[in-house]
């Protein structure tokens, strides 16, 4: 989880000296190259294979077995769009992600701006509380929310509302990290200038700060979406019934038995949505920060490190 500050990669990239000659002991060791590429293959091939199996013609999910789209669209009751349970899971995942995105982002932006400026009693603990969800093991977090919604807040109870609240709570901290990183980049100069010219604080925020934060806001929206759609533990603990099952919950429930390639197809669709959100986030960020000093947007997103199981 968390959180290497967004700027560090960009601000101090070392100057590289070109032209190391062959045989120079300072040139890059081959074995490092080897390890890295083997690692990359190891980390991605299994997933690629799982995606390939989704397009199988046959029923095998351990071997490549022809080409077809029937596990996505087949009219039998075993395809993603033929099995209401799988389809519901996809819809519900998208619903949760959409709601979490719309609630967590504004809350997180305000929190980030507030924490950045607020000095005084209580600001120290507030800073810790805002970041603790990033490092709290998800199980602890989920047990807490589960017990909260089954005792004190049993009027809300388990279900979609509880799930949205859970997703908002853990993803808000990511928004805080992203937005604060941007606040550091932007610096106080522009705002100060505006304030010196007599603009009232709220106008400064609305007219000056928000436009400057726009790239971070766009990135936050889509990253919250991706975090929420991938989440498993919180969704599972706060689920109330079949209508609140998400895609990761379906995968978890069926992977232990002997599922069909339609489960791979479902996972593939989920991955597609996540990656779409990220590519959009990257594109928007690049577009909005064009002309600024070239910190790599990729590395900015890279530095928003997320927690296991999410």
């Amino acid at each position: 989880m968390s959180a290497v500050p967004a700027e560090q990669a960009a601000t101090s990239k070392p100057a590289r000296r070109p032209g190391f000659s062959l045989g120079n002991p300072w040139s890059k060791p081959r074995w490092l190259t080897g390890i890295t590429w083997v690692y990359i293959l190891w980390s991605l091939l299994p997933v690629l294979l799982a995606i390939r199996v989704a397009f199988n013609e046959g029923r095998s999910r351990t071997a490549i077995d022809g080409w077809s789209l029937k596990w996505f669209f087949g009219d039998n009751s075993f395809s993603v769009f033929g099995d209401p349970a799988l389809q519901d899971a996809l819809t519900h995942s998208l619903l949760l992600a959409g709601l979490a995105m719309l609630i967590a982002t504004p809350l997180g932006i305000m929190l980030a701006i507030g924490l950045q400026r607020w000095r005084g009693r209580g600001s120290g603990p507030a800073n810790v509380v805002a970041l603790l969800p990033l490092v709290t093991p998800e199980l602890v977090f989920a047990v807490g929310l589960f017990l909260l919604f089954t005792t004190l807040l049993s009027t809300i109870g388990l279900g979609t509302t509880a799930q949205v609240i859970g997703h908002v709570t853990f993803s808000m901290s990511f928004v805080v990290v992203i937005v604060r990183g941007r606040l550091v980049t932007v610096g106080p100069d522009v705002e100060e200038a505006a304030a010196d010219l007599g603009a009232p604080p709220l106008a400064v925020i609305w007219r000056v700060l928000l436009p400057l934060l726009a790239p971070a806001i766009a990135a936050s929206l889509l990253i919250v979406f991706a975090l929420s759609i991938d989440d498993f533990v919180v969704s599972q603990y706060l689920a109330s019934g079949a209508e609140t099952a998400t895609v990761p919950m379906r995968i978890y429930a069926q992977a232990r038995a002997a599922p069909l390639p339609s489960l791979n197809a479902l996972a593939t669709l989920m991955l597609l949505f996540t990656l779409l959100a990220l590519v959009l986030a990257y594109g928007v960020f690049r577009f909005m920060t064009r002309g600024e000093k070239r910190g790599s947007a990729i590395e900015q997103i890279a530095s928003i490190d997320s927690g296991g199981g999410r």
Partner: protein
Amino acid sequence: MTLPRFSEPVSASEKPETGGVFKIYSYADYLNPDVLKEFGKREGVEVKVTTFDSVDEAFSKLSTAGLEFDVIVSTPDQLSKLVGRKLLQPLNEELVPNLEKNIWEEIQSPFYDVGSRYTVPYVVYTTGIGWRNDKVNVDPAGLENGWNALWDATSQRGKTQLLDDKREALGMAMLREGQPNLNTASPELINIALAALNELAQNVRPKVQISAYETLPAGRITIGQLWSGDLLSGAISYLPKGTPASVMSYWYQAEGGPVFNDILTVAAASTKPIIAHRFLNYMMEPQVAYDNFVNFVGYQPPQKSLDAAKLFDEGILPKSLSNAVVTQEAYAAGNGFLTLTAEGEQAWEKAWSKFRAG
């Protein structure tokens, strides 16, 4: 036992509710989706099934998490807890006429719910050992104590299953130790069973789950503790192409082994009590019960009209698994899991969590 009624049953003269989602809480793959779809069409509701892995989990979620359903599938040993916690509503017998009409007489007013105040029976089953006779060569029937077949299956380490159900798992260990009282509260007897389970975990390393109806036909499990219906369900729906049903075998302890039935109940929180009653009644219609059994679930309904032997003779079900149905005589002679005393419940639970912690 006769269970207390905490409220009046719903009146038979009320009109059935209309529209909306009709919610069932059940084991996974334990109701035929086509049968459910047909019911939904008949009553104009959308039927949704939420699944649980064990009845303990189900009770725990129902009672603390306030989940709301219309119909709950459960087991008789959970019944007094469910009633005590006021999670069920009493049945109106006028709304479930099929109970008397179609169901085996001995379960019409069963000992666990005299007068069928809260339950109707769903399906009957035995608990035994299922295995792939093409992958492992065992013969529980030839052993003095058949359960040893599982304890001896060390060559199948990791490809075995133990039911994720504290009563079934510890109960099997008791039978293996020659202790026939499956409802004991004695800490010594429970500890002996726990030791036997630990020995099993050590030597045979079973997965603790209930999905062998899929994993046994797929060959991921080669031998395990199974419910009888799992074999038929596996044969009906989950065999890979080219694998005949005859590769699966089943054994159960004919005398003193677990034989019982699951139950259908109407939840106290149901917003559609009339439709819920109708669902119970629907599942006891001979044709529906037959479709549910033969085309999907593999667990047999206690229907008077159902002649299981004929199904095997006609090849509708694989003959090699004919011992996976329950005869009326076997049911009557069966050994079942009943509600434990409070201390008993605690002792079983403690042993089970100790076992699960490895």
